[in-house]
């Protein structure tokens, strides 16, 4: 397949390294501002829930992290597919950098859910489809990271873990539709019904702001981690040695 020039340029590690350095603050700054606005909106402006009182406010962390746990997996799987199909090294670096972030978001979603579940459902954990599939997602992330680490040859680890990421994609629709397909203790989607949201506006806008803020934080973290990953992978090439100010000794590999 013929690919446009910008695709190759974007995939070149030195180019991406510089571009990411410029972009990172443009994600961090709005992310922090939105986070502050969302926290203020969620903790101060939003009225207490008529049943749950102030306990519902944990959704301002729970929903964004749960949403991102699947979203990051989708990004990781897409990057893995690109890496497998077009043998693009940068895509593998992106997938490798995204996995730990996604694992932490999944962990955060599970923990905040458990903290909320104790007073509301009377238990930290139930073997409910939504909860179980989210736990499977966490195991997939951990399996992905350890499979990558198990190979001595980085190239092999890249491709094997990419394949695993693609196999794991079947879990994403299961997570998303689990509350619709099965009678679940977890509540159904609230914000998706855009025509008539079952949540009041004062509660809704901080949630949307928080989702946006979390997404931007993910983008900023991803860019930063990919830069580190690229530096590590290309550590013997001339452009990295130039950046690091290390004098090039003898005959450097590649360049």
């Amino acid at each position, binding site marked *: 397949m013929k690919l446009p020039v910008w695709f190759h340029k974007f995939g070149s590690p030195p180019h991406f390294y510089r571009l990411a350095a410029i972009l990172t603050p443009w994600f961090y700054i709005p992310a922090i501002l939105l986070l502050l606005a969302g926290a203020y909106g969620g903790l101060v402006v939003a009225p207490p829930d008529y049943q749950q009182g102030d306990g519902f406010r944990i959704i301002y962390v729970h929903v964004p992290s749960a949403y991102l746990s699947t979203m990051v997996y989708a990004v990781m799987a897409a990057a893995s597919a690109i890496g497998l199909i077009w043998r693009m090294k940068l895509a593998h670096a992106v997938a490798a950098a995204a996995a730990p972030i996604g694992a932490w978001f999944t962990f955060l979603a599970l923990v905040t859910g458990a903290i909320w579940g104790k007073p509301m459902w009377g238990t930290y954990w139930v073997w409910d489809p939504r909860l179980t599939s989210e736990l499977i997602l966490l195991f997939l992330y951990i*399996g992905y990271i350890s499979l990558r680490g*198990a190979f001595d040859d980085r190239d092999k680890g890249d491709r094997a873990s990419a394949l695993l990421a693609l196999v*794991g994609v079947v879990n994403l629709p299961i997570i998303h539709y689990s509350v619709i397909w099965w009678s679940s203790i977890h509540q159904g989607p609230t914000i998706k019904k855009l025509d008539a949201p079952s949540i009041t506006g004062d509660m809704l806008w901080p949630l949307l702001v928080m989702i946006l803020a979390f997404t931007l934080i993910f983008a900023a973290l991803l860019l930063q981690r990919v830069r580190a990953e690229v530096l590590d992978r290309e550590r013997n090439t001339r452009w990295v040695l130039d950046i690091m100010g290390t004098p090039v000794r003898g005959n450097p590999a590649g360049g």
Partner: protein
Amino acid sequence: MLAPILAVTYHLPADGIRALCVTLLIGTPTLSLLGSVGAALTAGVRQSGGLLALLILPLCLPVLMFGSRATALAAEGEAIAGPLYLLGALLALAVSLVPATASAAIRISLD
């Protein structure tokens, strides 16, 4: 093979035992197919046992969930078609997708 006999010792009603056998019949090939993907992925890795379990367990969970659900429903005298259809769907998916995936995995880990 031993499952029906074990089920009798656990006082599972006859309907439950029948459902158990059917779910095992449909579920076991799915589990083996999933296992082949994991084995293929870890073929090039030393000490792959623990890693294999970590990779396969999450993929197996849906099969186990539907299987146990069908058996539990049958033991209570309810219709079990729903989970059985889903088990069948998983088997069909596994049969059609696993050979290609496993061959790709073997090619990666042994080249």
